[in-house]
């Protein structure tokens, strides 16, 4: 008798159905991916393989599931074209396919009324899915350095029950300040915090939420190779030692994960494995 744990992800060739650069350097891709959308939960991600035609040996890249249309099997990812992988992936055209591995990881718990969602930069991607997953009254703080980088189309955030607060560091759109400064105003009256963005933002939010005893969940990023928990490449320090961002996360209770990102001294001369 096999007692294998049935995994709920799969690796499939998925046709690209739509491509949109929502702003310069920001790409939104829609796939027909029923194998992923059926089970996908907000906060989960997919590993996107490089186009086969590129002939390149590059690791698949992790991208959050930005939204799903279960009825039509449509899955959206939304990313910044920051490096070589994103660049290659952004060259695909509707009609061609990419291999998607997913849905992967542990997502966010379901937000209750009065939840505060905080997105820094591309951290908006999983929070769009989270915001869409409920209609209870909730607030989203969407922060960015400057208006040109606020790449998520406004209509994606026009959702029943959702209040959106935009903030840019240079004041070029919405309030002036950081997402964290604005969030600190909202945290005392929030039931819980859900955040994704740069580590410093997550660390500050975790602290602010902990001071007031408000539950907080953060989605963290780390470099990945397998995306399924096998290689132990995506470790993050937690209260229980190193955990895998891809399998034990990417969403963690804010209080349990080390967000300081300070790397300790290393002793191992040979490096390896």
């Amino acid at each position, binding site marked *: 008798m096999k007692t294998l744990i*049935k*995994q709920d992800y799969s690796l499939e060739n998925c046709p690209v159905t739509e491509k949109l650069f929502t702003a310069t350097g920001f790409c939104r891709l829609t796939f027909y991916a029923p194998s992923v959308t059926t089970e996908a939960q907000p906060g989960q991600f997919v590993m996107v393989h490089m186009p086969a035609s590129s002939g390149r040996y590059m690791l698949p890249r992790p991208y959050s599931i930005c939204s799903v249309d279960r009825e039509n099997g449509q899955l959206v990812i939304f990313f910044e074209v920051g490096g070589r992988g994103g660049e290659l992936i952004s060259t695909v055209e509707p009609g061609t396919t990419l291999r998607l591995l997913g849905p992967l990881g542990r997502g966010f718990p379901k937000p209750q009324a009065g939840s505060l969602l905080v997105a820094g930069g591309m951290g908006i991607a999983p929070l769009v899915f989270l915001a869409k997953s409920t209609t209870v009254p909730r607030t989203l703080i969407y922060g960015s350095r400057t208006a040109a980088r606020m790449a998520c189309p406004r209509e994606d955030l026009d959702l029943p029950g959702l209040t959106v607060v935009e903030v840019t560091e240079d004041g070029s759109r919405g309030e002036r300040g950081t997402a964290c400064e604005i969030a600190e105003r909202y945290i005392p009256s929030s039931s819980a915090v859900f955040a994704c963005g740069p580590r410093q933002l997550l660390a500050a939010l975790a602290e602010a939420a902990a001071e007031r005893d408000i539950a907080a969940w953060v989605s963290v990023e780390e470099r990945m190779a*397998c995306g399924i928990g096998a290689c132990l490449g995506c*470790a*993050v320090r937690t209260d229980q030692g190193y955990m895998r961002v891809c399998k034990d996360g990417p969403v963690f209770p804010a209080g349990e994960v080390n967000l300081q990102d300070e790397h300790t001294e290393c002793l191992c001369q040979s490096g*390896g494995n």
Partner: protein
Amino acid sequence: MSIPSACVNLGGIELDTPVLAASGPFGHGREFEVLLDFNSLGGIIAKGVSLEPWPGNPPPRIAETASGLLNAVGLHNPGLNKFIEDDLPLLRELGPKIIVNIIGKNVKDYASVAAGLNGIEGISGLEINVSCPNLKAGGLSFGTDPDLTYCVVAAVRRETALPLLVKLTPNVNDIVSVAIAAEEAGADVISLINTLSGMIIDIEKKKPFLGNRFGGLSGPAIMPVALKMVWQVSEAVQVPVLGMGGITSASDAIQFILAGARAVAVGSGLFYDPDLPAKITGGILAYMSKHKVTSLSELEGLAHTGGDKVEV
């Protein structure tokens, strides 16, 4: 003409196909359950197991390089007891033969892991990873020195009757002398190569990218290095060689066999394509048909006699 057979005997381990999952990238296998056809894998080499749990290195542990990747996972593993309780039962249900990769900080540790695996069902062999940093020698790996390699292998040999693979590090001047030492100490198979030591620097933060500064390079970038070492070692030892390093296609695998490998292992290639073992096994069989050979033994090391031998 009879049908080609991909079966091989690797140092006493009968394999249905000459393709194994290399230690590490595959973890303990279960995560790949839905992603690949285990019939195409002759064996699975489990992730390195130490006597006590090892915490691994600080993040980041992974970085991508041109046609390869650097990892500094740091042999993070739950230790022997947890491996036996939690991982092995699932591993042995997957189908392929199981080989356990063993690691240690000193000779005694290696021997204790081997002893601890005695009498446990479902293990077809042990692979000693001699690339571990030797704490007594300031962190240099055992595998950089033929005498130290001999000591580790001999100590493990005394504890186990299982077929013994010894996995060599390429970070040495003379791989052949280390391979010979391993063979003399009782290795049944020489397995090579482990990762090549390297690093990358984050130009924004102006410091090494990896938490451990240095990491091990794997993937297609290292294949020519691995192939040459397999070539050299297979000429120098009598025992079979398990070749690995950067294999991402059947033609890569066939090159290793022609260079002298009895079987091959795929590691990082599984990240690019989990279906690789099936493609390699299928590709090898197709190549055998095309070249009218029925047994892989006809191909093993054939390049040594088939072409001109050039020393580099």
